[in-house]
């Protein structure tokens, strides 16, 4: 208990100190900041494993996410941006985890649903709608953002079902190839749908996408809090993403620990036996596709509004692979795993690799040399810039994981069931063997 508190306290202090303005000129600052931030986020993991009561964990976790992280974020908006990205990818990983982790359906075109959500709002939330439908009612007022968020969920789920219907007869590798193709088809369609009707504005993308309404601004002004819109929106998106991830976690958990989750896992484990138990394969697989897609739809829309601009480049095959890497690294079929996976991969890409690049650039400007071989860093070729090695990192990470810990960082754990009335007496009797059921 004390150790947990001490860890959280120290990590928070260090990161707060790092995120302040004082140190920005220090060599390798962004790398230091990344390390501090990882340590800070790590406190959530420490909490997760800490032997504390559920409510206390929840309260501390909320303090970290709702109070401490935004405080750092106001000092250093980059941290807030990273946290928001982590949240977006966490929701995507949670969605894909339903399809790949629970139901065992390898989907390599998951980004398609993300694109559907993003374009849905981009078209009606910008001038693009007027061009496409020849009217002047667009962009819709920001207040429409929330009704459309629900719609994005629905439309993405529908897309999932439409994709699922023809392809779910396929299994394993064949399914993977077809979903991969579907992801690419959506991107290519979006890329080319600037004629005959200009729906998506093709490769130029859609800009000036409406943001969600700042409905709380009057309240803030009344309280005497003033902030510029940029910070306000950054915080806004952070909390919006946090809320959606929270929803996603709760919904996924509830599905997982019910007949729905059991049916999905049964399909993953043995399709034939599952069917013999009365599980309608097609319907349950479609449900998995729809559930997974709906998370991506919601996040796609938030992503579009946050970026203010989207184009087909945001929805490439690499995005699908990235999310899949998060699921695998975190642990297939594991809800906390998906979140940890999203955090690790995103922080690695956005902070660690960029931090290394910045450090290298700083060093290049000095006359530093690599010792022993006497190689001046000023001559270090830009092709070897670490930030360009995002894909390599996915690959290396997956290889390392599959060698050292193939079940992922936080492996799937099956729900332990007990009889209500026997819980008290039976627990000690089962204790010696209970540990064995946890792994695998």
């Amino acid at each position, binding site marked *: 208990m004390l150790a947990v508190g001490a860890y959280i306290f120290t990590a928070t202090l260090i990161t707060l100190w790092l995120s302040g303005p004082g140190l920005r000129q220090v060599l390798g600052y962004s790398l230091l900041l990344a390390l501090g931030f990882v340590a800070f986020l790590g406190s959530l993991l420490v909490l997760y494993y800490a032997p504390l009561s559920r409510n206390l964990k929840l309260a501390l976790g909320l303090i970290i996410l709702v109070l401490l992280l935004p405080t750092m974020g106001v000092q250093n908006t980059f941290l807030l941006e990273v946290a928001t990205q982590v949240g977006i990818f966490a929701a995507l990983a949670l969605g894909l985890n339903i399809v790949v982790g629970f139901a065992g359906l390898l989907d390599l075109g998951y980004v398609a649903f993300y694109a559907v959500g993003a374009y849905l709002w981009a078209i009606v939330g910008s001038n693009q709608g007027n061009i496409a439908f020849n009217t002047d009612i667009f962009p819709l007022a920001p207040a429409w953002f929330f009704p459309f968020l629900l719609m994005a969920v629905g439309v993405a789920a529908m897309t999932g079902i439409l994709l699922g219907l023809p392809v779910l007869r396929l299994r394993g590798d064949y399914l993977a190839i077809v979903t991969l193709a579907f992801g690419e088809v959506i991107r290519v369609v979006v890329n080319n749908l600037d004629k005959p009707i200009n729906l998506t504005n093709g490769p130029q993308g859609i800009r000036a996408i409406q943001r969600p309404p700042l409905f709380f601004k009057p309240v803030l002004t009344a309280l005497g809090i003033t902030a510029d819109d940029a910070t306000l929106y950054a915080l806004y998106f952070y909390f919006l993403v946090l809320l959606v991830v929270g929803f996603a976690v709760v919904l996924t958990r509830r599905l997982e620990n*019910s007949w729905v989750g*059991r049916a999905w896992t049964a399909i993953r484990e043995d399709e034939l*036996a599952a069917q*013999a*138990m*009365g599980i309608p394969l097609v319907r349950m697989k479609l449900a998995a596709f729809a559930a997974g897609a709906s998370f991506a739809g919601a996040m796609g829309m938030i992503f579009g509004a946050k970026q203010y601009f989207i184009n087909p480049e945001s929805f490439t095959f690499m995005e699908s692979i990235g999310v899949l890497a998060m699921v695998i690294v975190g642990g297939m079929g594991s809800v906390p795993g998906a979140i940890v996976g999203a955090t690790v991969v995103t922080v690695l890409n956005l902070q660690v690799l960029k931090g290394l690049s910045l450090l290298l650039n700083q060093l290049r400007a000095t006359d530093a040399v690599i010792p022993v071989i006497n190689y001046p860093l000023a001559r270090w070729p830009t092709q070897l810039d670490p930030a360009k090695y995002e894909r390599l990192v996915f690959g290396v990470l997956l290889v390392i994981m599959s060698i050292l810990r193939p079940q992922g960082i936080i492996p799937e754990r099956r729900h*332990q*069931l007990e009889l*209500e009335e026997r819980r008290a007496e039976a627990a000690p009797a089962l204790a010696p063997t209970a540990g064995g059921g946890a792994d695998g």
Partner: protein
Amino acid sequence: MADLLLECRRVTKRFGGLVAVNAVDFGVERGRIVSVIGPNGAGKTTLFNIISGFYRPDAGEVWFEGRRIDGLRPDQVAARGISRTFQNIRLFQNMTVLENILVGMHTRIRANVVQVLARSRAFREEERALVEEAFRLFRFVGLKANPNELAKNLPYGEQRKVEFARALASRPKLVLLDEPTAGMNPQEMAETTQLIRRLRDELGITVVLIEHQMRVVMGISERVTVLDYGEKIAEGPPAVVRRDPRVIEAYLGRGAALGSAD
């Protein structure tokens, strides 16, 4: 004929040029324990796959409780009240013993997805009742393992019992057991025989089993159907069937049949 729970009428299944099941008539009266025997490749498992909906017969009909079930999907057949086990145990390896049993209850679930997402009272009560029943089945089949152990970590005999419990979880009217004693030692075999009898006597379930162990077949079945090369060659009480020259010929060859006919 008496009250037929299951009836196959001239069921035929071909795989390319091979006729795996050829115009087989097969009826099971309610409340019976019936065996299907025959040499390897005789079409026994194919017959099971036809009944449980995994294969669609090329000709013939399957009736269950007065309704046609051929052409239904396996999950629909299961929902009608037929459950089965598999020759090579097919448990959900990475699920716990209890979860395996709970999956078997799928056809009886009433809570819909909205109730699941809302964790409604109805959902929680149903879930609790199902878990309780899963524990009862766990004890009924005589499992000794930790109920929260992953199925793959169980010894072979225990896995067989889990498969039994899972097949019973849907409260079926008919269970199809595909070689339930395969790979068992004599003691386990005796236990299993006992268990099959209890399915019928205590739960009122009609049982059809495929079996190679003659001791088991002769010990519990009230009727035996013999298949050979996809055709039914004999049917009747075990004591009669075991003396049938065609059956002996199918198992031991023509010479043996002639020898024993004397």
